[in-house]
């Protein structure tokens, strides 16, 4: 991160950032559209879908928001769950922030505000190749992703309104299906040697969830079970 001597191959321009974002756009568009449809099925209005995508700007958190909202979870449970779900961004920011220490605090707040799983992925891959990251490039990447997300979520919401009686069509299951897909994709990034450990932990989690559901509402069970699983995970890893 310090004293880079090699010549940067990727120019530090906004447009280069936009170009490097394009391969990830299909992901934003498909999840965004799905979120809009799920949001409507969860009794959230198009305006609220728009506000969520502008202000929260996090796919999994927005889906979980719908799930908790439909379940009638209290405000505190929604906010704590969203906080815990997005703690992973802390890890990602921690990983790429050292590349931007030469920029002002305000610019850095900008980079952090628009950080997502995908822009993090692109930035990490690029920093691996280039050894450095440029601010204008990062802004181009971030702004493109952000615009695509807001647009696709809102359009998804509008499409969702045209689908009458969403439950009959299984639309309410879109949320669970999305979590299954996100889980499988996340597990796909786990190193092969650790996969069995994770699968055993999910087994533990199922048992913990079953027991907890006798005593606490579902959203509390999710939170307690997850933190218990993470603790068991740390204690039992080799």
């Amino acid at each position, binding site marked *: 991160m310090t004293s880079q001597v090699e010549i940067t191959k990727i120019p530090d321009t906004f447009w280069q950032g936009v170009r490097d974002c394009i391969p990830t756009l299909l992901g934003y568009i498909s999840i965004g559209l799905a979120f809009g449809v799920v949001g409507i099925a969860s009794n959230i209005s198009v305006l609220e879908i728009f506000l969520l995508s502008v202000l929260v700007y996090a796919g999994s958190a927005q889906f979980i928001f719908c799930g908790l909202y439909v379940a009638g979870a209290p405000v505190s449970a929604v906010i704590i769950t969203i906080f815990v779900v997005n703690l992973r961004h802390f890890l990602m920011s921690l990983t790429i922030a050292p590349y931007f220490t030469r920029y002002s605090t305000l610019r850095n707040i900008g980079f952090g505000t628009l950080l997502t799983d995908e822009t993090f992925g692109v930035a990490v891959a690029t920093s691996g190749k280039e050894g450095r990251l440029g601010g204008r490039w990062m802004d181009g990447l971030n702004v493109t992703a952000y615009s695509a997300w807001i647009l696709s979520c809102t359009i998804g919401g509008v499409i969702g309104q045209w689908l009458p009686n969403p439950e009959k069509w299984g639309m309410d299951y879109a949320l669970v299906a*999305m979590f299954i897909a996100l889980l499988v994709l996340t597990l796909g990034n786990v190193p092969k040697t650790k996969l069995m450990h994770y699968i055993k932990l999910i087994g533990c989690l199922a048992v913990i969830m079953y027991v907890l559901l006798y005593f606490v509402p579902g959203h509390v069970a999710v939170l307690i079970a997850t933190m218990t699983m993470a603790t068991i995970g740390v204690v039992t890893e080799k």
Partner: protein
Amino acid sequence: MTTTTAMVLLILGCALVTWLPRIIPFVVVRNIKMPDVVLRWLAYIPVGILSALVIEGLFDTEGEYVAIDWMSMAALIPTLLIAVWTKSLSKTVVAGVVTMAALRYIF
């Protein structure tokens, strides 16, 4: 349908708790180091949360005993297989929705 003050405040609350973890490292990273054990703990959180949300949907807590929701369990298997096979969010969602719609039509 538009929105309510309560909903806007809830969204703002969620926005704040997603924004802070994103920006804090960028503001203070110059010289902090997270304890290794905290990083390792955090690494399990995404898989934990997602699994817990999927598992929650498989149980029916309406009755006296916590029971398995067989309809959701039946839809889980093809959805999971499609997810593993295609590694695609959109295809998995379509497969899940179609499976659930078919199950509700049959039973």
